[in-house]
């Protein structure tokens, strides 16, 4: 039996089957599941913010999409020797939408876009997503099959 390895906010973990990766409470944050299929090794990243450029303190790099993804992809590729990775994402909600707020200010949407942009730059194809809306999500990544279960409150579970 594998372990369930929990990824906190602004953090990431890498592990292999039969372990599972999970992250709880993605609101406007985005969870990115990366998978090296031959070695059944995966990473789960829980980013908070799209872009680190306007921040002076970048020491907690797993918090930012633009810093986290290149570093995690590199680590996973080096660890497994696999270049081709599978990717699924979830999150990026606007939990409370006030009418006064423009979409430019909505951090959830900006997180989703930033993650997609960085994945494109890294030459990775996004295989499946469950993003946006007003509901929070939790992600459970099975590293044997790379099924990603997305759980929400008062809604059907969705499998990516």
């Amino acid at each position, binding site marked *: 039996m594998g372990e369930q390895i929990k990824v*906190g*906010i*602004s953090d990431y973990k890498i592990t292999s089957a039969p372990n599972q990766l999970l992250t*709880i*409470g*993605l*609101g*406007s*944050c985005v969870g990115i599941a990366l998978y090296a299929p031959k070695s059944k090794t995966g990473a789960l990243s829980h980013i*908070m*913010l799209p872009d680190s450029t306007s*921040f002076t303190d970048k020491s*907690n790099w797993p*918090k930012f999409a633009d810093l986290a993804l290149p570093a995690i992809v590199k680590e996973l590729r080096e660890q497994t020797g696999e270049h081709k990775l599978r990717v699924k994402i979830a999150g990026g*909600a*606007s*939990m*409370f*939408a*006030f009418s*006064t707020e423009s979409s430019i200010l909505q*951090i*959830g949407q900006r997180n989703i876009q930033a993650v997609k942009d960085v994945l494109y730059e890294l030459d990775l194809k996004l295989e499946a997503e469950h993003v946006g809306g*007003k*509901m*929070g*999500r*939790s992600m459970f990544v099975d590293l044997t099959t790379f099924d990603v279960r997305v759980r929400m*409150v*008062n809604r059907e579970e969705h499998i990516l």
Partner: protein
Amino acid sequence: MTKDHALLRYDALQEVVNIGGGHAATSLSKMIGRPVDMDVPFVEVLSYEEVYQTIQADDTIVKAVLSELIGGKYGVFLFMTDPKDAEKLAQMLLPGQTDYSEELVDSALKELSNILFQSFLQAVMELIGKPLIASLPVLTTDLFGSILSSVYMQQEQFSEELFIIKNNFYSEGHKIEGSLYFVPKPDTLEQLLHQLGI
């Protein structure tokens, strides 16, 4: 800043939250027709992990009502309670109904939260002599972790360390509980202390 000055600022802030929370508790008590107790205000800086370990687990389902201070960049009020407690509050607020649907419970909770926010604000306005208006509340039922992180980020609080400001209310012993949070925008507390002459 000297240590004494920092302490003074902390005490002043805690006192404002105490006065606002006290006002809100009195209103809540009137609405539900029974006594309401309040803890000493909680004013502390904690990491997300510490919040989830000491205040509430990230996977707890809560009902959360949010209202934004309008007319400036100030912050939001957030009232959070367990869905079962929300139902009990609705029964106290609207006694004698035959069916407490989730819709009815949510409306009652929004109304009650609105009055809590308004009474808290009323007390703060008297202290600083400046008008403040809270927007109509919005409600969601979701995980504590999703709500907390999203609200802090929406208020441009991007640090992993959260300034938690909250009052806990109780009624009937600890059978019904609710927490009123104030999540400030980055400069709000400075402005508030300035208004108070500190």
